[in-house]
């Protein structure tokens, strides 16, 4: 057992990645789902510990956007309305992602996936 105890969990890591990358809904099976729920809760807790209330609201909004299921290939998501996501907003979202990565909330791969989603 020596090397198994206290090591990062594959399932937990996978679920956390799915939450950030917005593929949690695709995770099948009760184990994956309960892990995804835990990861989501953990992500919220970590965010709460590090962010002010205003920042937290932004992060939640951002995570829920990232979690929106991808549009089907036949109907690509329309360009976001200017009022919903002006260029400055996109920039601030990217900056937030970068700071989440710096804070250790996102791994390199998660950051890349989330960034790719933001940039459409």
């Amino acid at each position, binding site marked *: 057992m020596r090397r*198994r105890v206290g090591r*990062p*969990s*594959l*399932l*937990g890591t996978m679920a956390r990645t799915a939450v950030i990358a917005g593929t949690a809904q*695709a995770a099948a099976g009760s184990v994956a789902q309960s892990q995804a729920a835990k990861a989501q809760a953990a992500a919220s807790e970590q965010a709460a510990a590090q962010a002010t209330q205003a920042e937290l609201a932004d992060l939640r909004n951002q995570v829920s956007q990232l979690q929106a299921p991808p549009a089907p290939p036949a109907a690509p998501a329309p360009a976001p309305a200017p009022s919903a996501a002006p260029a400055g907003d996109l920039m601030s979202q990217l900056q937030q992602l970068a700071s989440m990565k710096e804070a250790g909330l996102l791994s390199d791969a998660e950051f890349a996936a989330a960034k790719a989603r933001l940039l459409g």
Partner: protein
Amino acid sequence: MAMPLGPIEIVVFSLPGDGLAGEVLTEVQSLVAAGTVRIVDAVLARRDADGALTLAELADEPSWDDLAGSIDHVEGLVAAEDVDLLTADLPAGRAGLVLAFENTWVRPLLAAVRGAGGAVLGEVAVADVVVQEIADTVPDEEENR
């Protein structure tokens, strides 16, 4: 570790007693010998009558140490926490054989997909009982004619 790792799949089998079923060992060994799979980690989790879970390494099981020797070792890849989750439904008096393996056909296929500018959009494994249940609801074309 000789080779870099591709995506791995984890399967947990619930087996009676100590979980060291000879016919399962034989089949796993032939899959490894044929190069169909590469076992990257394996662990046994035994649930006693009181519900307590004990982990055992294959290398410590004389009848299975041959297999342990052929594991392309990343021993400890499957964390104890993973084993707890994976064997949550394991009944008392049974053993969960946790096998983490790489399907050797995946990596070249993945390389081809990525080379073609593609990506993995999703993957899901469907249990055989579910496949059968749904397959049974598919109307038989012969009958409809």
